[in-house]
């Protein structure tokens, strides 16, 4: 009998031993696949960040040229700066810098080295400090985008003249500036403080940034309370019946609807029916609210479900009303999860362009939006518009704008992580 027993155990151990190597191998394979998957996704991420950063970092600097500007009394109308000939001031300064240049065509080429932004800069200087009129000052003005590209090494200096944006004569003028130290790269403030422009050297993301903030603020203000109220009602108060099931199915479906559909809806309802102003953050916020609501409701319901029933029963047991049970006990416990869901929904809204296309927020807008009804764009839209512009200098600005958008996203997502780690309770 014991012989038979011995036999049996031997057999089991044999089976185990025989299979052991295979099982270990299977585990090693599985780990390897996992590792490969992570390495592949990481390398894609590195590639993405690598190209964006290597293309975009140079946009945070801009080439400036030093000019000796005489604020000529005759050319400036003190009471009405808009009537003054600031372009003439720039041309006069360039003429003094290179007195040997004559002829209409050559002068045009020379004046083309300085950005048209120089004119606006002088205009701003005089309107903030009228005391400048009649004096002569050294002013650093932005260089033209072609010069900027040359100084950053994105355009070549050699090769046939017809192959270059700047010809030999212009290169010689720039060379003289370089020798005299009158051309330099400095921090590109305009990129962070101005709105869109068709001149790459003047284009900035502040307008799009403000537009994004206005739109997202409205989205948050609408979708957070509505989403949370809806989820609390559905989870804690709603009766179980066919109708509620139907609502549930619809919410889940809406979360998967392509965002362009919400844009079309926004166009039909908010613009064509309610006549809200086109291109405004108001309509943008409303459309993005519709888009993020299902996400927030689903996340909030999941987080309400994760609150153990014992909490509810205990609250009801000591005589709390259902309303008190929800407000004093369930909601505080579920709120971190709801906030996380909301932030993830907002991050998705931040990256959307498709619904904004339909409601006119994909537009060229220079003025910084100052209310919910002035026309505005958003960061991803700005990236799209710059990527589509013919000027070479917009390539680096596109990447720089992507960096800003990524930074915004990282901040939002880390906020979600922090909120979760700080307040979330596990059961």
């Amino acid at each position, binding site marked *: 009998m014991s012989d038979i027993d011995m036999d049996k155990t031997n057999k089991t151990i044999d089976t185990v031993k025989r299979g052991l190597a295979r099982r270990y191998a299977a585990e090693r394979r599985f780990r390897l696949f996992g590792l490969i998957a992570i390495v592949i996704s990481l390398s894609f991420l590195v590639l993405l960040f690598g190209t964006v950063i290597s293309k975009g970092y140079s946009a945070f600097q801009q080439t400036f040229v030093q000019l000796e500007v005489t604020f000529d009394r005759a050319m400036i109308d003190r009471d009405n700066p*808009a009537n003054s000939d600031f372009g003439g001031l720039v041309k006069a300064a360039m003429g003094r810098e290179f007195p040997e240049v004559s002829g209409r065509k050559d002068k*045009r080429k020379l004046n*083309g080295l300085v950005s*048209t932004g120089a004119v*606006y800069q002088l205009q701003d200087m005089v309107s903030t400090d009228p005391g400048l009129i009649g004096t002569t000052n050294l002013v650093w003005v932005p260089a033209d985008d072609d010069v900027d590209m040359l100084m950053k090494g994105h*355009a*070549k200096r050699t*090769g046939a003249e*017809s*192959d*270059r*944006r700047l010809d030999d004569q212009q290169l010689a003028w720039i060379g003289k500036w370089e020798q005299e130290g009158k051309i330099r790269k400095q921090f590109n403030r305009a990129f962070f403080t101005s709105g869109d*422009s*068709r*001149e790459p050297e003047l284009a900035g993301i502040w307008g799009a940034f403000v537009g994004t903030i206005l739109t997202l603020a*409205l989205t948050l*203000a*609408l979708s*957070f*309370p*509505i989403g*949370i*109220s809806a989820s*609390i009602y559905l989870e804690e108060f709603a009766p179980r019946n066919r109708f509620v099931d139907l609502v549930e199915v619809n919410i889940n479906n809406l979360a998967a609807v392509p965002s362009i559909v919400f844009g079309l809806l926004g166009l039909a309802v908010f*613009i064509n029916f*309610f*006549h*809200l*102003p*086109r*291109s*405004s953050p*108001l309509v943008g916020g*409303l459309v993005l609210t519709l888009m993020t609501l299902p996400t927030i409701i689903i996340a909030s319901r999941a987080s309400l479900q994760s609150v153990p029933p014992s909490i509810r029963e205990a609250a009801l047991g000591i005589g709390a009303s259902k309303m008190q049970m*929800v*407000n004093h006990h369930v*909601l505080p416990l579920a*709120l971190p999860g709801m906030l996380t869901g909301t932030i993830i929904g907002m991050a998705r809204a931040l990256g959307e362009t498709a619904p904004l296309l339909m409601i*006119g927020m*994909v*537009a*060229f*807008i*220079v*003025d910084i939006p100052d209310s*919910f*009804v*002035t*026309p505005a764009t958003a960061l991803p839209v700005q990236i799209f518009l710059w*990527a*589509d*512009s*013919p*000027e*070479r200098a917009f*390539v680096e600005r596109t990447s720089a704008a992507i960096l800003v958008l990524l930074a915004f996203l990282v901040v939002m997502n880390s906020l979600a992580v922090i909120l979760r780690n700080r307040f979330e309770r596990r059961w």
Partner: protein
Amino acid sequence: MFKRGVIVAGACLLVAMGGVGLAQARDYISIVGSSTVYPFATVVAEKFGRISSFKTPAIEATGSGGGLKLFCGGVGVQYPDITNSSRRIKASEVKNCNDNGVKQIVEIKIGYDGIVLANSKKTVPLNISRKELFLALAKNIPDPKGSEMVIPNPYKTWHDINPALPDNAIEVLGPPPTSGTRDAFMELVMEDGGKEFPWIKALGKKDKNAFKQICHSMREDGAFIEAGENDNLIVQKLEVNPKAFGIFGFSYLDQNSDKLQGTLVDGEEPTFEAIADGKYPVSRPLFFYVKKAHVGMIPGIKEFLNEFTSEKAWGDEGYLTDKGLIPMPKAERVKFRNDAGSLNNLSL
């Protein structure tokens, strides 16, 4: 928390209602329309916003057809004031406008744009006729044996069409059907190329639909690739693949003259001068249309027209030529400036 949420929601609803009130007055010009005119209109708008006391106009690139549809929606602040177009307004669109109460339209031609076929500078430039381009890109071509029948396009390389052309596979990246550039390319290259065959030309007079069927169908076998509206993407692809050609507006060739070269069409190189004096065959006029009923209702329209039609903007050496616009001859500029000044009605 719950109560506060309700209050916030209510407040936002109030803001939204306020928006309805504010929508009654718009203090900036709203412009829609062609993505080809967009680079020029935006430059003028930006200048206008900076030097005048008016707000900068908001400009959307919706395509010529989409822009005219929005423009003709009606009169009122929720409809755009100006639409850009890379082709002339059609009679059907004027009728649509009239039906919706947009009865008075001012037409301004702003200049010309050339459509180029370009490739990378790493290879030799192509010299091709419009007939050969038609043979290279049409889905169906006339039977080379001479009968009045069309056969599926058999040509694989440029060399197959004309022994003088290089022995490279035909590969052309072009705009999608929604684009005005595509419309113009169809009209100026494919139709004119097809008309080189006498029987197709005769067909054009007899049966317009059959004619369009032949000339407007592009190859779908990989020789013609729809590359989307993003012309910069086409430029990048051409750099990587020197054997490929791209179709886009002249301004992109102008901005990338260090990387790309234009194809000679009918022996003419696409240069600024050749397009301006009409030697280069593939060029088209650009327009914008103004809703007269909005002048006076929306501040700044007259002043904007004045800026756009000034010599310093669209003249021979104006700032629009720096952006690649081909200016009109002096006489035409004077005519359209007068039209803009006195808001003359469009006559088709």
